[in-house]
Structure formats: C-alpha cells, structure tokens
C-alpha cells in the first residue's frame, strides 16, 4: 500500500493550510483554515458559548452541488466534536475550513461521495493543526470497499468503488473511539464487524482477533498506520520550524 503524502502550511495568507495526496484513490486535496474570525452576520444566537464551524468543499472543475453539501454536513459534525470551541477567543467566532479537490478527477453526479471523505477529513485535520486551533484529539480515517465476492479492499479506486457492493468510511480518534461511521450499499452486521476490525488496524495498528488476523499482521509489519502518518507530518514540520531550538539542545 502506497502511503499518502501531505505538507503543512503551504498557503501564505491562510491561518493554517495543508495539502494532502492519496495515491491509492488519486485524490489531491488542498485545505485552508481561518480561525478565529469574526462572522459576518449574527449566526451565533443558537450556541452563544461555542464556536461556529463552517466547511466548504469545492470540486476542481465544477461548482459545488448536492454531493458537496452532503460531505460538508458530515465533516462539520465530525469536526464539531474535535474542535474545542469553548477555548478562549473562540466562542461566537467562526472556524472556516475550505477544502478544494485539486486533483484526481472529480466525483461525478450520482457517484458515491464517500471515496473522497477520508482525504477531506485528513486534510481538514492537518489544516486545523497548522492553524493551531485548539482540538480535543486527533483522528484518522479509512475507506473500505466490499467487492461483490465479499473481499474487503482498502482505498478502492473510482472504478472499484462503483462496482463495490458496499462502501464504508470509518474514523477513529487518537484515544481509540469510533468517531464516524458512514456506510453505503448492502451489507450485514458480520461484514460490518470485519470492516471495523480492518479499519482499526489501518488507522491505529491495533491488534485484532478472529478472521482479520492475517491481514492485520501484514499491515502492522510495514508500519503503515494512518495516525502515525498524521503525527509524522506534524513532527516534520515542527522540526523544520524549530530547527534552531532542537539543534541547539
């Protein structure tokens, strides 16, 4: 499995930004975060003690439509759990996340939007980290497809996703909790349980028991944990920024 690549603080004028490329699905996402900012209108009446989180998803070659609205809703609900909107300076202010799908083809109308969701989730997390927005935890997310013959495939390509009988996106927090579970298609509970075990091993490298054992062993051995990927990306950037400090010690 080819590891995704990412870099932090790629945009100069945004408070925080990240670019993320997933070679398996081919998506290339550029994300920017502006926070805390003053909201233009009084949109704060409902939750006066919390920050307002807004997510915009822009496809590379068309205008945003129904599919984008749908993932924006999912992203907003996940990120609301993660962002500490009650820290000082954040209540009644806005956290605006803009995600542009700049490469890898866009999702055709009618296609499943779940294939981009992990890339969007990782980009927004890295951009939030780069903007130093207070977060309760980090997370990692995986896309899994079940083929017609019942095999579980990690990061299916656009064609495979179209042919799959079901698609699943799961996200796990850095504390091991299940943050997000979005599924599409026909599947039963046993399949979902297998999917969950596989997703845990991809995201957190945790040991799993039962039938998924051999698969998990393979992924553990090459150390391709997604939460480790997020950590490494952030540590690399901090090492660059604080080279003067780290080297002098």
């Amino acid at each position: 499995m080819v590891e995704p690549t990412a870099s932090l603080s790629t945009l100069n004028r945004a408070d925080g930004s990240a670019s993320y490329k997933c070679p398996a699905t081919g998506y290339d996402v550029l994300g920017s975060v502006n926070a805390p900012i003053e909201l233009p209108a009084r949109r704060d009446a409902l939750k006066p003690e919390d920050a307002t989180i807004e997510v915009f998803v822009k496809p590379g070659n068309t205008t945003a439509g129904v599919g984008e609205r749908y993932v924006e809703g999912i992203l907003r609900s996940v990120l609301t759990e993660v962002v500490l909107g009650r820290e000082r300076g954040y209540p009644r202010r806005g956290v605006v996340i803009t995600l542009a799908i700049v490469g890898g083809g866009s999702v055709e109308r009618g296609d499943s939007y779940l294939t981009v969701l992990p890339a969007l989730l990782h980009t927004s997390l890295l951009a939030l980290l780069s903007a130093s927005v207070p977060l309760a935890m980090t997370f990692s997310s995986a896309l899994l497809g079940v083929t017609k013959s019942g095999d579980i495939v990690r990061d299916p390509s656009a064609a495979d996703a179209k042919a799959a009988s079901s698609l699943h996106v799961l996200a796990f927090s850095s504390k091991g909790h299940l943050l997000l579970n979005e599924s599409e298609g026909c599947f039963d509970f046993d399949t979902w349980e297998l999917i969950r075990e596989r997703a845990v091993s991809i995201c957190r490298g945790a040991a799993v028991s039962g039938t998924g054992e051999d698969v998990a062993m393979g992924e553990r051995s090459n150390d391709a944990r997604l939460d480790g990927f997020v950590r490494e990306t952030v540590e690399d950037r901090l090492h660059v920024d604080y080279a003067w400090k780290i080297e002098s010690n």
Partner: protein
Amino acid sequence: MSTPLILLPGDEVPSDYLPPTKSNPLKLGPGLRLLSQPTASSKSSNHVLTATQAGLLATDAKRNTVSLQSFSNRRYIPTTNDLVIAQIHHSSVDYFHCMVTPHTAHAMLGQLSFEGATKKTRPMLKQGDLVYARVLSVGVGAGAEVELTCVNPATGKAEPGGLGPLVGGMVFDVSTGMAARLLRASSPSAEKSDTVDGLVVLAELGKKLESLGGFEIAVGRNGKIWVDCSNAGESAVKVTVAIGQCLQSTDERNLDAADQKKLVTKILRGMKLA
C-alpha cells in the same frame, strides 16, 4: 534540558517533563489544558495535562511555567500586555484608529494615552504614522474592540520604555514566531546569556555596525520590526535595509547561530558596509 518533546492534541504531558514541584503553583501557557479523570480505585480525581495544539513543549523552571510552542507562521491575535507596532489609519475626536493586523477591525488608541499628553500637548499623528503600543484590553466576545495604550495608566510614564510614536526608520514583516523570539531574547532576564533561543543575529549586527553609529530597533508581537539608524549618516538607508534583510532571512530560512553570523557578514559585505 531533555530531548524536545512534540505533542499533538489529546496527548498527555508526561510528568517527568514538568518543572519540579515547588511551593508556588504551576502556570499553564497556551496550548495546554488541565483535565481531571475520576479514578475508579480512589475517590480523589487524577489530574492530567493534555495538549490542545500541536507543538513543542517548553518549560521554564525559574518561573514555573509550562507551555506549548506551535507553528510560527500563525496570524497574530491580540493579547493583553503584548507590545505591538500599529499604524494609524485615521483619527477621530477621542481616538486614533490603528491597524495592528491586516483585514481585521481597527484597534483604538486614545488621543491622550501618550506620556505627558494633555488636550493641548498631544501628538498629532497622521494617517500612516507608526506607534509602538501596548495592548490594554481585548474586550470580550466577538466584535469587541482592541484598545491600545502608549502609557502605563498607573504611573503616567511610557512603560516599558520606548512606547509612543515611531519617527523615521522602516518596518519589516517577520513571522509572529520570530517576533516572539526576538522579544524573549531582549527581555531583561535574558541579557546575561549571549544566545537566547538561538538568536545571535542582533548581537552580531550590533558589534559590526557600532562604528557606523549603531541602530535602534522595536519589535511588535504582531510580526513587525521597526528599524532606525538615523545616526549612520549617509549609509543610513543601506544599514536599515541590511538589518531588515538579516532578520527576514534568519526567520525564513530558520538559520542556526553559525549560519546567522555568516549571513550577517555576507549581507554587510554585499552592501559594502563591513
């Protein structure tokens, strides 16, 4: 100091990284929060420090503080008691409206909040003039006004020294992380040691430019550096530009101490100043 520790949101701060416990309580800086975990075994809750941002853990044993240093290129958010360099946008009856950061609401600076200012003898600042000011208050909640002052309201003096209009000179932009570093390096407690936070560029410039009359510098937390060397006579412009270049390259390229010295020599030689 032990090896640098990088934390991500949700990570716990290991207790052996904290300054040793003394009588005065530990102070938490930005990026950290205190959580209490109720333990099943005992009734007393267990306190843990967790990070809320990604950053490098920094502890100060003398002042008993612990904080997290995050990415250095973030936008400046006004905090009370910060020193900033503001530019006058326009003036109204009671206030000067100043720009501290671009694209944000103007900060207010009272017409009389200068040292020795009265209704008759107040500085007449025009649009575009610079002031070195302290953030007096940032207000509460969204849409609040940031208020600046150039005087300590208790004593009527410009404390710490140098607050007030900045005449002449030139302003350079640096990252907010670099501005914080420069301020730490020039704080009175840091004067004893030669290299604070790996910064030798100012000391080196001071040594090399002493013969030309030296220079004056003011650092604002909002990522602005004001440089003036009106004593340098004919080469004043060259010296100003050289100092600005040295500081900006140190910031952009994250130079270490040896490279900073090399850079200063190279730039001054290129300008035919040394």
